[in-house]
């Protein structure tokens, strides 16, 4: 297994947001997470990247494993190692505004992986080529469209050679006509056999790209399965409700 999550919980004060998440993902698989607003999707991704410290549970990515316990802080060195196993793509891109596209994609390589500038630049250029932005290498983020910024974001997430890529609603901030160019890049990564977890509201895309779909509600996994099953013949009432609400919104 590329990723193994056991009994993960997360509370903010009294509010418990994740209530015992168990999750496994094989190398090369794509998991799409769907669920209503406030159900805990972002919190789950952020826990996997330890941007939030889980309250309890175990996260193992590749050979790196951390066990979280209430009231005790995980070792910083271990957190750093775990973080380097994942690449995060944010809804609002969060590119570094004082760096060019190329420098954004070099940054993690130079600081976290301690690659030389030349190595980092070579790798960054090939990643920018992959997302179709070779000609924008020297542009600053504010000179790029939302879709282009998000593609730089994807290249940056891949720059530290993570075993697992995490996407938190990567197209939600985009104008409709820019969504396609970003989804195209993600589809291509799926076709290359990248291991990914994607939170999205784009159901057609989810159906195409996912090996498995997972519905989260109130911090628990309601249902999980291959797309045909989850969309075609959902087993749980809550899944049916969620899907019918979604299609109402579209019509």
């Amino acid at each position, binding site marked *: 297994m590329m990723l193994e999550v056991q009994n993960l919980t997360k509370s903010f004060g009294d509010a418990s947001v994740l209530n015992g998440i168990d999750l496994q993902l094989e190398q090369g698989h794509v998991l799409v997470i769907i669920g209503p607003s406030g159900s805990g999707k972002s919190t789950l991704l952020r826990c996997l*990247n330890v*941007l939030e410290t889980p309250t309890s549970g175990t996260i193992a990515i590749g050979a790196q494993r951390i066990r979280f316990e209430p009231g005790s802080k995980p070792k910083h060195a271990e957190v750093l190692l775990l*973080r380097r196993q994942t*690449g*995060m793509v944010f809804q609002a891109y969060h590119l570094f505004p004082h*760096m060019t596209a190329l420098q954004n994609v070099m*940054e993690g390589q130079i600081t976290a*992986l301690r690659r030389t500038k030349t190595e980092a630049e070579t790798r960054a250029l090939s990643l920018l080529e992959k997302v179709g932005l070779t000609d924008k290498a020297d542009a600053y*983020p*504010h000179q790029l469209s939302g879709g282009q910024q998000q593609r730089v974001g994807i290249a940056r997430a891949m720059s530290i050679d993570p075993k697992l890529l995490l996407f938190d609603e990567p197209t939600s901030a985009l104008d409709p006509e820019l969504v396609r160019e970003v989804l195209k890049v993600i589809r291509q990564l799926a076709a290359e056999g990248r291991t990914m977890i994607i939170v999205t509201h784009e159901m057609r895309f989810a159906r195409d790209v996912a090996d498995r779909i997972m519905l989260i509600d109130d911090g628990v996994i309601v249902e999980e399965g291959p797309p045909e099953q989850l969309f075609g013949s959902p087993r749980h009432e809550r899944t049916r409700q969620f899907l019918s609400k979604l299609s109402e919104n579209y019509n």
Partner: protein
Amino acid sequence: MSDRTERLLHIFIESFMPLLKAGLLFTVPLTLISFALGLALAIATALVRLSDFRALAELARFYVWIIRGTPLLVQLFIIFYGLPSIGITIDAFPAAVIGFTLSVGAYGSEIIRAAIISIPRGQWEAAYSLGQTRLTTLRRIILPQAARVSVPPLSNSFISLVKDTSLAATVTLTEMFRKGQEITATVYEPLLIYCEVALIYLMLCTVLSALQHRLERYYERYHAK
């Protein structure tokens, strides 16, 4: 030209070089040194106040509280005239440097702290997600962006400092203003001499404002207009 005008013009020209010399020899170095040291102190103070080291953070808060709550003139008097009575005697120039540095450090730390806080959380998270440590993130991601935000208010402090150095006259340092006082005492033309002093301060500040403008333009290169 009347005799009076001729005399004034003569005094003006005669005193220009001595005043400018006092400015370049004392006012400018005092400003530059105090600002450079003060800026370092300001960054350190801001970082300490934002850190998890509670005791240090409290100490930094105390320092800022004292400096901001008491007049700079009184602080200079304490350092130069007060400390000798407990056996600490400091020459005029270093005493002034200490006074101004402490002042820049306190006010500057508030500017820098506000600038750091103003950088969106997403920037920290993006850097963390790449596996950067807190210190690396500060150094490479947060401080460069905070620097851009701080340029206008820090330039203000800098220009204020140029003028505040005239307070050093009160601790016997013959910087530009005190030089003006000395000249006045011999030629009895206070209006002329003090206006001349003001003029040279104005020149210095104008040059600095132009530099500030260029610095702001430099930082705008990565910022949407």
